[in-house]
């Protein structure tokens, strides 16, 4: 089936996530959709499956327009999606998971359904025990099951959203084999990924998205540097770094640390970060850098290995002790984890500085002018815009911290604000302590950090001082090349 998306727009409130995307996918091909986090790939695909409504635009299937649909009707037209977050039921059995759904005629005959499942699995060389509870399966096996289910429903257009995250190499091989087989049956496959490795191995054609717009298309065989250029903004020429100061004593060290969490976990991480270092964590989201920061901040516990922060063994420490020792952590989820909805700017200051309301009001007013927060001391956190929430979060950091762990510190800020924030952060922390930050923008890391760690699949695959770094190499390492 041929799929054509025309001028798709999507707005979430004020956020214009998709700005007129055109995409044409031919029947019997594997089409890749690549781009950075937040480029709009998943949103676009969720619109195709009817999970999200579209603000504007047309969808054509074999040239016939498909009306606004919910997932049920999209499924009846032959569209099925393997979501990034598994949409299944862990406490139910494999067979039951296979059976749930109205996107085909329900058939409650278990023997018949088990036979169908076994046949489908055999055809793609998957091995799944229908009687097992789904929660006992690995992510890869759950994905195989979902794939079989979709095929069993007779999908003609199969969408896969980041299917290779969190699965083993063997499972990946199986998956790719299966996808080639499915393509050769004449079905259409759309592969959403930020891993170029996968895209290069699988796709016949690729569309690149950036900031909600199509920035290019390419045909196999692909030239990776060309794709990277379309995915990321050009590497900047200017360097705002001042002369790097001499390293001080160790502030944070990881010794053979492994942990579960995010999707990939973190495996065997070894490194030491010293006073006066600014370390950037590069990697596509969910590659382990978030978990790394949470472990360092004593918000998560490692499964194995030893972490020392600010001279203390983190073994029995909680985040409270981490803070008292002079650490601070800035989370990526602003309203989920960082700020308190319903609280005003000045409430936040009272909370953070353990002071009275009058003092808090003064502090809030100072921060508002220093960080250019658009709001008043009595504005509530949730009514600030995303960028201003970020500024508030930054302004709440204890000024005397000696280890600052920052998750996406300039998310949602424009270039100029980001520059001001970094000036402030460097002045505040870099002279006395260390900054460790992650960012979804590779440019930012290359611009700001003195040392870069590249995360891929829960491992640190590069650890280099900025001077020895090559933009192409980092971008490639991030995508597993």
């Amino acid at each position, binding site marked *: 089936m041929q799929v054509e998306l025309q001028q798709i727009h999507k707005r979430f409130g004020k956020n214009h996530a998709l700005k007129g995307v055109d995409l044409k996918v031919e029947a019997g091909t594997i089409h890749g959709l690549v781009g950075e986090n937040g480029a709009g790939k998943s949103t676009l695909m969720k619109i195709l*499956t009817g*999970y*999200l*409504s579209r603000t504007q635009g047309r969808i054509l299937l074999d040239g016939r327009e498909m009306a606004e649909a*919910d*997932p*049920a009707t999209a*499924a009846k037209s032959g569209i099925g*999606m393997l*979501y990034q977050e598994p*949409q*299944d*039921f*862990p*406490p*139910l059995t494999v067979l*039951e998971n296979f*059976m*749930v*759904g*109205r*996107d085909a005629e*329900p*058939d*409650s005959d*278990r023997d018949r359904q088990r036979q169908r499942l076994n046949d489908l699995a055999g055809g793609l060389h998957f091995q799944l025990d229908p009687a097992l509870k789904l929660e006992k399966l690995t992510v890869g096996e759950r994905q195989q099951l979902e794939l079989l289910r979709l095929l069993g429903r007779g999908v003609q257009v199969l969408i896969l959203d980041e299917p290779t995250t969190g699965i083993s190499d063997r499972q990946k091989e199986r998956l790719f084999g299966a996808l080639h087989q499915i393509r050769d049956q004449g079905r259409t496959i759309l592969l959403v990924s930020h891993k170029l490795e996968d895209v290069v191995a699988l796709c016949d054609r690729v569309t690149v998205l950036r900031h909600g717009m199509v920035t290019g298309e390419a045909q196999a065989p692909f030239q990776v540097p060309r794709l990277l250029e379309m995915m990321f903004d050009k590497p900047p020429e200017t360097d705002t770094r001042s002369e790097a100061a001499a390293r001080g004593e160790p502030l944070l060290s990881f010794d053979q640390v492994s942990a579960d969490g995010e999707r990939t976990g973190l495996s065997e991480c070894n490194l030491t970060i010293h006073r006066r270092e600014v370390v950037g964590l590069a990697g596509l989201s969910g590659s382990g850098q978030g978990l790394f920061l949470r472990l360092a901040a004593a918000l998560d516990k490692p499964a194995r290995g030893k972490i020392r922060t600010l001279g203390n063994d983190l073994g029995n420490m909680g985040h409270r002790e981490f803070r008292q020792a002079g650490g601070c952590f800035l989370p990526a989820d602003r309203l989920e984890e960082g700020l308190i909805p319903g609280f005003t700017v000045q409430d936040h200051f009272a909370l953070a500085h353990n002071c009275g309301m009058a003092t808090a009001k003064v502090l809030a007013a100072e921060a508002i002018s220093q960080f250019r927060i658009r709001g008043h001391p009595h504005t509530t956190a949730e009514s600030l815009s995303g960028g201003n929430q970020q500024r508030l979060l930054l302004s709440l950091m204890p000024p005397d911290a000696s280890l600052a762990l920052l998750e996406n510190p300039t998310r949602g800020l424009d270039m100029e604000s980001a520059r001001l924030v970094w000036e402030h952060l460097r002045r505040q922390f870099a002279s006395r302590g260390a900054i460790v930050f992650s960012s979804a923008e590779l440019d930012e890391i290359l611009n700001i950090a003195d040392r870069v760690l590249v995360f891929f699949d829960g491992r640190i695959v590069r650890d280099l001082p900025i001077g020895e770094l090559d933009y192409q190499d980092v971008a490639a390492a991030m995508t597993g090349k």
Partner: protein
Amino acid sequence: MNELPLTALLASVLATAAPLIIATLGETITEKAGVINLSLDGSLLLSAMIAFMVGFETGSFTLGFAAGAVTGAAIALLVGFFGIYLGQLQVAVGFALTLMCKDLAYFLGNPYSRLQGPQLISWKIPGLSEIPFFGPILFQQPLPVYMGLLLIPAVWWYFYRTSRGLELRAVGENPEACYTRGIDPRRKQILYIVIGGALVGLAGAAFSLGIKPGWGRPQGIEGLGWIALAIVIFGGWHPIRVALGAFLFAFLQVMGIVLQGIWTGIPAQVFQMAPFPLMILALVLINLLQYKGVQRWLEDKPGLALLVDKLRGAPPRALGKTFHPD
């Protein structure tokens, strides 16, 4: 104890358990679909009152039971509508309704207090009731007892052997995933809270028209709704274990009456509260089993691990939550 024949004792356990089984299975259906109907205590009472009133006025058991079921369903519909469509806390709505329905029952039922109304008599199943020992226990009971007993396998069958039942459980686990698979989770949840509520209503009718006949303030079933809610948790949201929980409670209650004859100084209410500390203890134990240390300890004890696995009834993961499509 010795004066009371064992058959009579067991028969009365069965009779006491029956309406409770109907109510707890109703709530099990509701919660399995991911909604909490906390109004049970009030629902039971109001539907008991309405059923008695209708039965008294019309002389018809059928109409009485139907009225009870409709009452329970209507209250449940309110919980569902407020909780699922109006975005209010299901627990808050349920709690307010519990108190209100209880008072509404006393208010509307005032004229019917202490009246001699219709009362279901035991229904002897020809032939079977003649079996020695089992006959009088199982086959000489009022209609609700048979209803309750038949409902247990029926609900189990529906949950675990039909595709609708599979959808019901799926909605309670992950409404969002259901939506992506073409099932409207909100419609399902409304449907099952109403069905569950209707069963609670039937249970109320079973009390006032049979097991605890008549109406008054107090009626005598106050507090049972809360016990029913606790039994659902105790039973791990599994229909057969929930029913066993209801039997256990009925047994405790009957034993309370028996023991009262022995320890005359202690009022019946003291015995009636026994299930509550037991319930709390059971819940603590269930939670304890989920600790990693306990799990590790169990790893090399397969027999025990299997038992624990059977005992550990996890709540539906989306209990109390609902999913709003874009």
